[in-house]
């Protein structure tokens, strides 16, 4: 076997060489005949079908140009007629299909032949393949009605074939090419317009499950192509729901869903009764029933589709959450109902008593319907399913339905809360996200909140963060609820100190959403006493800061609250307002002069003082007329410092401020460069004139070329550059062209000195990409020990803000003490997207080194890779002009955008 393989590899290798020779002859314009001719010769040479097959396989490896396709097709067809071996014919048929897909080749010329050979073909497999080829031809010519009709005709004729493969392909053909318009104008050939839907519908009852599936799929295909399906299909599809084969059931569920979306309001009778219901409700009931199907694929499908049935009546919707419990034929209340009752009776959190859940009233045995006729309990089953795929689908569906129906949202809350305890983290996470999405519609009861908060102790950071996000937008009904949430969050904080920021943020929103509920809690939270002064809490305690964040945010809309503050609270406010400005809002405090006190609460961003400050400082810079070294440099330096500070204070302006500061720094550098050049020119003696002048000619020429090219490329953007250096440069172009290098330099120098700053219009939303490495924390004194030469895995966990396309741009860099640097590309799966603009990188970095005598620190940091060419082609102006070689080879590089973290490692020498 191995020898055989080797031989084949060798053969192929030699063949490849031959091909190259052929390619070389291309210059002589011999390719076109030679391609088909070579094939022809090969096929004639073939002594056995196996040989012919080999040739064909080889032929299929290389592409064929559009102009030689027809010739090749003729050769293939010719051989097809002669060939007796079905496998070779099969290959030819598949090649025909491939060739007809060639771009630029119109396959209508080979259709007749294809149909012809179809009629004489006996082998079912080849037939199926030929139909596939016809499908390829048909899809290539979507406009040609006549051809489509003809193909549909052919498909109909072969629908009665005994092989399932052929029937499958026919149905596929019908689904893809069946005519859309009912009244196609009488065709010249007089082909009757067939009712494609009816023909396909007949095959819903085929004996082969594969054909049944294909029929349903074809029907769905028709729908996708815009053909309106008849309502009669609904009943047929319903029957298929009890098919023996899962793929049929799965497709049937889809079809029912499609029909229910098409005819939601039509009325269908309920079998074995005189009542009638809306079709969408009926379909909903049927799909709900499939949530307890035997096959999990069908269950997933059904659960997913339930979510998008929004027209269903609320009565049916609410049934999905009702399972009608009973015990020994007596009605029993669910744990949810009991919890609700306990809550409303004011007795929260009672211990479970023996017989607490004892069933109450008797049930009429006749009325109990064990096989749910409707939607009864579908979600209860779906959420309890053994496959987590089904559970996730059910949670998603719940989410979508709850978003469109507030009353349903209220009802499904208990179930979602229960899902917080699922055994699979993905499901838990999904249900927390779902809850967040519907949180506008709901208010959490205290007992529900209790369950939600219990999850705060989860050891998974993802879960906790998701939960914080959820709490940010939850409505709580009582002050006890707020208190409970605060206590649990503080517990969370002590257990997982790394969650600090996320918890503070969460409390910020919690406070601003519930000012009136926080108000009565303030004395308790601040532990103030009406008569006695209490000890001043530690200002650096994260828990205390958390409490203050809650209170200050509540106080923003509750003017009576500051009256309850003690003196040190005000002091702490001032400090926090400065140090954590993104968490602590501006307050109107009595007796305090604050900038914001005079302003109305709803200030637009432009009237915002910090924004004004930004504008003013930028305008000050732009008003500079000349790049006068001394004063300008100082002003620039101050402005840069101001901007940076502003960015730190005002998180929403951070992007703009940092961006401007960076821009100004560029200007500053330019000034410095000029200054240094003068130094070079005038401070040093003995600089040979020759050594400077010779390259100058070349440089000048190049410079002029570039300016010229620049002008052509940026012609559309030139008006933006008025009054700048560029503008003047272009004005002076004719003069420059004629001048000598020395003069050019002189002119340019003068111009540079006179030019003003380019006024950079700032877009509203500039965000700075940033990254924070959470893990490794870099605080450990215990070195990570490993045997040298082997690797050690280091878990890296980081949050990324405002990074576009992190999968491709974010890299991890490890710097060893010996200066060696290692770049690691994280896998795309390592990035998660917890919220808009935010990403989280959880990956493993493998470290290795030769043995050290002592533990030492390596640095880990994140880099943002860029490729200058990757951005340029997107801009519209490059389309016209040809690319200069400089632009073409984009500059690649990386920018570090996170603080580096030091990790203590110790590669030990290997023991022998």
């Amino acid at each position, binding site marked *: 076997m191995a020898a055989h393989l080797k031989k084949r590899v060798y053969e192929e290798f030699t063949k490849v060489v031959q091909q190259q020779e052929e390619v070389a002859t291309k210059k002589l314009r011999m390719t076109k005949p030679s391609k088909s001719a070579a094939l022809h010769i090969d096929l004639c040479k073939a002594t056995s079908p196996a040989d012919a097959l080999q040739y064909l396989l080889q032929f299929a490896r290389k592409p064929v140009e559009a102009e030689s396709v027809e010739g090749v097709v003729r050769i293939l067809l010719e051989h097809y007629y002669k060939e007796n071996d079905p496998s070779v014919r099969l290959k030819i048929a598949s090649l025909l299909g491939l060739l007809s897909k060639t771009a630029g080749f119109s396959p209508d010329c080979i259709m007749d032949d294809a149909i012809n050979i179809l009629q004489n073909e006996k082998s079912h497999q080849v037939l199926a393949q030929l139909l596939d080829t016809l499908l390829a031809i048909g899809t290539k010519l979507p406009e040609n009605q006549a051809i489509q009709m003809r193909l549909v005709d052919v498909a109909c004729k072969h629908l009665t074939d005994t092989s399932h493969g052929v029937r499958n392909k026919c149905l596929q053909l019908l689904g893809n090419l069946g005519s859309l318009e009912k009244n196609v104008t009488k065709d010249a050939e007089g082909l009757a317009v067939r009712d494609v839907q009816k023909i396909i519908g007949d095959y819903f009852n085929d004996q082969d499950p594969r054909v049944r599936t294909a029929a349903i799929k074809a029907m769905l295909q028709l729908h996708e192509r815009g053909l309106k399906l008849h309502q009669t299909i609904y009943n047929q599809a319903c029957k298929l729901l009890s098919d023996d084969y899962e793929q049929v059931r799965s497709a049937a569920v889809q079809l029912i869903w499609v029909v229910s979306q098409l005819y939601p309001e039509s009325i269908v009778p309920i079998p074995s009764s005189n009542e009638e219901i809306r079709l969408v409700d009926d379909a909903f009931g049927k799909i709900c029933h499939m949530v307890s199907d035997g096959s999990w694929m069908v269950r997933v499908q059904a659960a997913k589709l339930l979510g998008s049935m929004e027209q269903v009546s609320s009565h049916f919707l609410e049934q999905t959450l009702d399972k009608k419990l009973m015990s*020994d*034929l007596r009605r029993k209340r669910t744990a949810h109902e009991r919890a609700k009752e306990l809550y409303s009776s004011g007795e929260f959190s009672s*211990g*479970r008593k*023996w017989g607490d859940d004892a069933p109450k009233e008797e049930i009429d045995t006749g009325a*109990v319907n*064990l*096989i749910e006729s409707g939607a009864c309990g579908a979600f209860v089953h779906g959420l309890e399913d053994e496959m*987590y795929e089904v559970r996730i689908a059910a949670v998603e569906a719940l989410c979508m339905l709850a978003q469109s129906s507030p009353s349903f949202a209220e009802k499904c809350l208990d179930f979602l809360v229960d899902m917080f305890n699922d055994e699979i983290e993905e499901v838990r996470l999904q249900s927390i996200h779902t809850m967040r999405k519907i949180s506008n519609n709901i208010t959490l009861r205290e007992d529900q909140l209790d369950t939600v908060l219990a999850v705060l*102790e989860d050891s998974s950071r993802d879960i906790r963060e998701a939960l914080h996000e959820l709490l940010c937008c939850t409505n709580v009904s009582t002050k006890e609820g707020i208190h409970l949430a605060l206590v649990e969050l503080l517990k969370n904080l002590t257990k997982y100190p790394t969650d600090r920021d996320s918890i503070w943020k969460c409390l910020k929103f919690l406070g601003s959403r519930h000012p009136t509920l926080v108000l009565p809690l303030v004395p308790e939270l601040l532990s103030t006493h009406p008569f006695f002064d209490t000890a001043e809490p530690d200002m650096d305690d994260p828990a205390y800061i958390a409490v203050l964040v809650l209170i200050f945010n509540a106080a923003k809309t509750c003017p009576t609250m500051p009256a309850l503050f003690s003196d040190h609270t005000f002091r702490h406010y001032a400090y926090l307002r400065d140090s954590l400005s993104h968490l602590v809002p501006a307050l109107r405090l009595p007796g305090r002069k604050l900038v914001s006190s005079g302003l109305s609460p709803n200030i637009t961003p432009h009237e915002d003082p910090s924004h004004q400050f930004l504008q003013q400082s930028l305008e000050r810079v732009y008003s500079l007329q000349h790049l006068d070294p001394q004063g300008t440099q100082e002003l620039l330096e101050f402005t840069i410092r101001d901007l940076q500070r502003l960015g730190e204070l005002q998180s929403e302006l951070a992007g703009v401020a940092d961006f401007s500061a960076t821009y100004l720094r560029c200007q500053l550098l330019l000034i410095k460069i000029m200054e240094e050049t003068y130094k070079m020119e005038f401070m040093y003696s003995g600089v040979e004139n020759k050594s400077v002048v010779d390259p100058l000619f070349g440089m000048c020429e190049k410079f002029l070329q570039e300016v010229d090219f620049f002008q052509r490329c940026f012609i559309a953007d030139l008006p933006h550059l008025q009054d700048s250096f560029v503008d003047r440069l272009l004005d002076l172009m004719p003069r420059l062209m004629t001048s000598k290098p020395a003069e050019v330099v002189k002119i340019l120098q003068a111009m540079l000195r006179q030019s003003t700053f380019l006024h950079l219009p700032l877009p509203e939303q500039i965000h700075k990409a940033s990254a924070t490495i959470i893990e490794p924390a870099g605080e450990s004194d215990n070195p990570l020990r490993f045997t040298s030469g082997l690797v050690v895995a280091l878990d890296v966990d980081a949050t990324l803000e405002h990074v576009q396309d992190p999968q491709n741009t974010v890299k991890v860099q490890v710097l060893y003490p010996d200066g060696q640097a290692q770049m690691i590309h994280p896998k795309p799966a390592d990035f998660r997207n917890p919220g808009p603009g935010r990403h989280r990188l959880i990956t493993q970095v493998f470290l290795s080194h030769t043995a050290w005598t002592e533990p030492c620190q390596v640095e880990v940091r994140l880099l943002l890779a860029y490729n200058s060419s990757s951005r340029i082609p997107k801009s519209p102006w490059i389309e016209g002009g040809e690319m200069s070689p400089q632009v073409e080879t984009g500059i690649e590089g990386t920018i570090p955008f996170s603080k580096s973290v030091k990790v203590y490692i110790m590669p030990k020498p290997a023991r022998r």
Partner: protein
Amino acid sequence: MLSSVVHSQNSPPSLPLQWPSPWPTRAQHASRPAIGALTPLLPVGSGSPLATSAPRCPRTWFLSRGFCRVLLPASFPLWHLSHRSLLNSPVFLLLLLPQILAGQWERGGHGRASDWSSHTGAGQDVGRSCILVSIAGKNVMLDCGMHMGFSDDRRFPDFSYITRSGRLTDFLDCVIISHFHLDHCGALPYFSEMVGYDGPIYMTQPTQAICPILLEDYRKIAVDKKGEANFFTSQMIKDCMKKVVAVHLHQTVQVDDELEIKAYYAGHVLGAAMFQIKVGSESVVYTGDYNMTPDRHLGAAWIDKCRPSLLITESTYATTIRDSKRCRERDFLKKVHETVERGGKVLIPVFALGRAQELCILLETFWERMDLKAPIYFSTGLTEKANHYYKLFIPWTNQKIRKTFVQRNMFEFKHIKAFDRAFADSPGPMVVFATPGMLHAGQSLQIFRKWAGNEKNMVIMPGYCVQGTVGHKILSGQRKLEMEGRQVLEVKMQVEYMSFSAHADAKGIMQLVGQAEPENVLLVHGEAKKMEFLKQKIEQEFRVNCYMPANGETVTLPTSPSIPVGISLGLLKREMAQGLLPDAKKPRLLHGTLIMKDSNFRLVSSEQALKELGLAEHQLRFTCRVHLHDTRKEQEMAMRVYNHLKSVLKDHCVQHLPDGSVTVESILVQAAAHSEDPGTKVLLVSWTYQDEELGSYLTSLLKKGLPQAS
């Protein structure tokens, strides 16, 4: 006007292998007359035996979804065939009537129907599952359980019910054990070693592994602790296990040439299985105990659409629809968590296997998730052994455990450690699982006595407690307990009840019935009153018969087996060629002859049948005279008939023969003058039986008269 005569050409009318067409003789215009008739000799459909009703006409021959089958009621009576004067027809073999016999039985005196509720009632049914199924001559015993409530002879089933004389091995073809609970396998060593059975015993591999541990434990308690004599020994358990054959899930095991069994996943406990027992086309599915909702360590029961003749299902929760498990789990975890956070101790009395592992997994994952530090302990050596097997049989657990075991086997508990007696006194919070589950003796009771006085502590009862046990007392709210030695124990600790049951509820049972689509359902393992409700529901919603036999009762089910009939390819092709593809929506008729020889059935063409049986062909011709008032000559008359028929029957070959007669296919029409009335012509129409359709159409056409010559 119309008269039919049977022209029987030198043959007695005793052998009409083919009957006239049952197809309605409605004329079919311009289409080929329906392909005559075949005739399955035997009535089809209708599950009820036809013996009492008048024999109905033979009906259709099915050709749907690719296979042909003749349905035959099992109790098809011989006289019914003879009535059709078939007795002198070819070799005819009466089919062996397959019957399914099922019943539960136990020791005499307690097995009567009236006694049912006294033993299985009171809400707790622990048992004695033992069912004998006799299917198409094969005898299979399903489960071999013991009763926990008795310690005398009554605890084991009375195997003398099976056969009074002779050895069990001769009578039983195999024994199947569904899972390792003692009420399903407890009597096995007694049955195989003491009563004597040497045939194969089938069970799944986890059951095979864990079952002997439990049996040995049971034996120890019975013999060593209670000092019982005449009990099976350790050696007997070993010998018994040697007879066990392990089966895999979905593996079809051929017990003998005809009997095959197949296991399906059942949830409930590790290794629990449902079994399909199949003989020919008859099959029975026995569920054992099963669970349709997954739990923390096991998945849900699943079965394919195997359409058994009979489904024997447990019905422990026949009248209950349970709440979602999640609330209970959450409550349980919250309570344990709160107590531990308070610094209290939690005692969870459990039975060694089954629920204990589920709770362990639940707590273990919770501890992991919440990063808790309080220790969890698990008592007794029995569990350690069993846990070992839980680690091994990962394919039998649920999706989560199966998916994550590569990283970490969930049964390799990180937080759960073995318990030592000394730990009970150590300070600080802890959680302890201890046996037995009802707090009536042993370690759990010892720990309970130590901890009961502290209100910070908590005891969680995860299952039902029998009356009289400490567990039952504290659950019913008693706070002062009298212990032995007149001590009074004051219970200050919190008492919680948390039920985790692993049986299917009413909805689950219905779901399984819906999945398997059985023809009959038999309910076992439940209370009569509750089963009555479920029986009614099953009959109402699935329209199948449902039975609920009492102990010792036998149920006999008639079945309608499908009998495969071989058809010769030539015949099939020939008949297929006459029409379009078989349309699944309509039954198709075939011409053919059914031959029953030895025990196989064949459908062959009539020519071949005649040849094989060495019989001469008899032709059956119907002749009919049609009187027409016409004064013209016979020749002319024949010509007009010819023209008329030709215009009407376009698709058929109409010929005018030189002798003046007209033929349409094989139908002959001759015109003759009436012997008495010259103004009336008589048309003689004659057709063979095969062309009955066309013939009768033709006569009715001719009867209407000929159109006036234009």
